[in-house]
């Protein structure tokens, strides 16, 4: 399915908030996404990270070295901190949010160390998440859709339809996209 040739498409959110799963969902619908094999699948992301430059794209953005023209009409993954450095352009962003405790649990698992100052870390990330959302909402060159990771697991059809409508795409591949939502990957799930 084709996207607008003049627009850069971004999947974003805090790290460990479901961004890789969103990329997989888009990929399943034959929506063009760009990624490389610089970071191999592992226990933290068994199906892969679906990112560019080993996830170090933020460094390129900070230095003004990322070529957005090369990625028009394609989705790339830029985690939330990188959104601060988007140059003027035309963007559609799907921003994934997740229960903050699950995000922190997943970060700790990936790093392999328990956070001794977890409450402080949590507050910093909450403030950061709120700040980033405000920043992108205030940009005139950006349209954003907020998807809740926990809700997409509960009702994939409803949330994937939101994504397709946001992208002005038909619902032809809806079932393929829904299949990607794999509850067994929900390793830090809280009880509902």
């Amino acid at each position: 399915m084709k996207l607008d040739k003049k627009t850069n498409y971004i999947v974003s959110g805090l790290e460990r908030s479901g961004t890789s799963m969103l990329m997989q969902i888009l990929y399943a619908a034959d929506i063009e996404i760009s990624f490389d094999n610089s970071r191999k699948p592992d226990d933290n992301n068994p199906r892969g990270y679906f990112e560019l430059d080993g996830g170090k794209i933020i460094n390129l953005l900070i230095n003004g070295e990322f070529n957005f023209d090369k990625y028009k009409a394609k989705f790339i993954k830029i985690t939330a901190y990188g959104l601060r450095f988007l140059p003027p352009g035309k963007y559609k962003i799907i921003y994934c949010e997740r229960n903050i405790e699950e995000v922190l649990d997943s970060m700790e698992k990936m790093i392999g160390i328990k956070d001794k100052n977890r409450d402080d870390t949590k507050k910093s990330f909450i403030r950061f998440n709120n700040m980033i959302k405000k920043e992108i909402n205030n940009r005139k060159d950006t349209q954003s859709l907020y998807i809740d990771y926990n809700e997409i697991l509960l009702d994939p059809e409803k949330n994937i339809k939101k994504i397709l409508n946001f992208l002005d795409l038909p619902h032809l591949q809806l079932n393929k996209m829904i299949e990607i939502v794999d509850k067994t990957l929900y390793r830090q799930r809280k009880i509902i």
Partner: protein
Amino acid sequence: MNEKKFINIQIPTALANKIQKRIEGTEFASISSYVTYVLGEILSETEEKTEETFTKEDEEKVKNRLRALGYLD
């Protein structure tokens, strides 16, 4: 002296009955456990919505975490 870990709270019977029906077949073993979960979520959401400024100190904490995760040099 033993520290009290729980207090008793009253809710209308009609509400309790609704909750009982809702939790049938779920992982919640009791009305208390469900109510505890829901109130915890609400308080958590309220904390998340608090308008607080993102400080330089916050930014350093976030960046340190990104470095540890391999997203920043």
